[in-house]
């Protein structure tokens, strides 16, 4: 026999309970209705049998460093190659080559030494297009500090971001016979230029397309004007000969050799090269694409960045995306002598065949860019 609920119950608990349920439901609805904008481009071009959905994992957020890929999306270059590309931005804990290997992304942008460290640990990633033909890393100091070559490091405080960013610098110091800690002090530096400007370090690590520009966007308290390039001295590791290769497109080595993935890889590289060539020839339009994808980015800073990124890509003597064997060897030499890698990677770590096939595919597009030269960019305060 079923007994009815207690009549002596103090007070119906129903109302607050319903309130709680309603709150939770509201929260779920609010969250669900928010999950809207997964806008995949509608259909492909007319000539496509089908559209391949492809994701590209970046190392960091939208900025001109990745302009060519964003341009290839926004200008329809990927679509023309029957690709529907989703760009996955980087985060603090996102390691692009790991995302690639785990299947969370189809391609990844990564610096060569970092990806090779992962490869040495058994992550099968392959460099299929070496987009940046030069290193963008500088060591920047104020002109009055007199640090114009690695030999001048002696006895100074030299900033570095660490985490694998220090090897060009350490190898550079060794070209002058200087050992870190014994002959100069390596100071952990934040990813900004505050320590240099505040005088806490004598020279700071800087990407030519980012942190170097940030100094030039800062008011010099002595003049009341922005810092000028002549206020600074720059050591460029490309000139010292200890540059290591940076942004490259990496593919999943376990899938390469599969006909469909190979074909998709070639098309992806081809459209990416078209994107970069477009950014070379339409810098203003390309900056607009970047700004539209990064609503907090400073306009003049991105103009500067694109200009310098173009300088890292163009000219590409062997054609865009094709590895320069000499620079690869230099990168490996430094990586092994600095202990980044225990031994040189195997021959499968990079291949030029996809980039070469992609160059075939893009036809008469200028993929060398000999005629390109830097434009004049005027930086504004705060990079606005």
């Amino acid at each position, binding site marked *: 026999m079923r007994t009815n609920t207690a009549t002596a119950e103090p007070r119906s608990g129903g109302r607050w309970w319903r309130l709680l349920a309603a*709150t939770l439901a509201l*929260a*779920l609805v609010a969250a669900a209705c928010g999950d809207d904008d997964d806008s995949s481009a509608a259909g492909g071009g007319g000539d496509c049998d089908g559209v391949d959905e492809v994701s590209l994992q970046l190392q960091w957020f939208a900025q001109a460093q990745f302009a060519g890929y964003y341009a290839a999306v926004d200008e329809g270059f990927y679509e023309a190659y029957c690709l529907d590309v989703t760009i996955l931005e980087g985060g603090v804990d996102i390691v692009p080559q790991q995302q690639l290997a785990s299947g969370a992304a189809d391609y990844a942008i990564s610096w060569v030494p970092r990806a090779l460290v992962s490869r040495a640990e058994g992550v099968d990633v392959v460099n299929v297009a070496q987009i940046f033909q030069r290193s963008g890393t500088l060591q920047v100091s104020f002109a009055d500090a007199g640090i114009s070559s690695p030999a001048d490091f002696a006895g100074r405080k030299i900033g570095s971001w660490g985490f694998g960013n220090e090897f060009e610098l350490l190898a550079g110091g060794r070209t002058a016979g200087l050992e870190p800690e014994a002959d100069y002090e390596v100071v952990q530096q934040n990813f900004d230029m505050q320590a240099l400007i505040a005088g806490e370090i004598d020279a700071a690590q800087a990407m030519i397309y980012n942190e170097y520009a940030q100094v030039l966007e800062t008011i010099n308290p002595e003049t009341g004007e922005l810092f000028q390039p002549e206020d600074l001295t720059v050591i460029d590791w490309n000139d010292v000969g200890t540059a290591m290769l940076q942004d490259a497109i990496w593919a999943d080595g376990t899938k390469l050799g599969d006909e469909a993935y190979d074909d998709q890889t070639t098309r992806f590289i081809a459209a990416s090269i078209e994107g970069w060539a477009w950014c070379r020839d339409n810098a203003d339009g390309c900056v607009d694409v970047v700004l539209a994808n990064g609503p907090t980015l400073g306009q003049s800073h991105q103009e500067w960045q694109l200009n310098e990124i173009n300088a890292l890509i163009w000219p590409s003597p062997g054609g865009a995306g094709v590895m320069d064997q000499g620079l690869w060897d230099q990168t490996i030499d430094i990586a092994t002598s600095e202990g980044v890698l225990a031994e040189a990677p195997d021959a499968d770590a990079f291949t030029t065949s996809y980039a070469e096939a992609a160059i075939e595919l893009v036809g008469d597009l200028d993929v060398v860019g000999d005629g390109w030269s830097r434009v004049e960019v005027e930086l504004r305060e705060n990079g606005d």
Partner: protein
Amino acid sequence: MRRLSRLLAIAAVGLALAAVWEGYKLIGQSIGPEGGPSWLPVATDDLTMPHTWDILAAFVEPVQRGRSETLAVFLLRSAWFTLREAALGFAIGAIVGLGLALIMLRSRFLDRGLVPWINISQTVPLIALAPIVVTWGRTTFLSDTQAVSLIAAYLTFFPVAVNGLAGLKSPDPASVELMRSYAASWWQTVIKLRLPAARAYLFPAFKLAATLSVVGAIVGEISAGVRGGLGRVILDFAGRYTTGPEKLYAAVVAAGLLGLFVFWLANLAERRAMRGRAVELS
């Protein structure tokens, strides 16, 4: 009147904090070089400690040159994005937390067995967990924002489970005996006696969980690089600190206000749910 005096008190403390900030800056700069004497824990130059009015001014400046949207509006949109992630995370966390509390109430064995695991779960650093969750999400059907919500849920279930169990156990044995004498089933006892009694424990947990859900969403965004929310904005401005420290401070203020907002919401819900409670106790 009471509300007015409360707002006045909050404003007064806010002004006092701003005065301390500016005072510290002023003293530092008057007795040392630009950054203040080196023995000060925080340098007092404008880069390290922008003026409070510069931070306020940053809110009304355009977020990007040539765009009409101000930083305040942009932050508001970003906060709405983060709030939605946090809301989903809170909902999942609350449901899972309550569920665990009920399971532990039901089974003495699971009560003993689960508690250490639940405790361990909170000692795992969030930044270690976030990339795993995001990678899971991407290799399955979850979007990155849903993965972020899961990270938020991971933080929020804990206080709900722990406080919920304590609340469910809180009725005195006499009341439980009374229910038993009515031949009430386990569920009837839970719904009529234990859950109402658990209110006093659950709502403080909800308040904590609500703010934690915002923290979890922001950390998850930073970790996974999800675009659109406050976490991303904070990371973005942090990377460009040298050329606009006041923007980073503005974004941090926005994150604080969002936390305050959800706390206020939870508080409001608590007041509604607890109405009449005093009568009941008498």
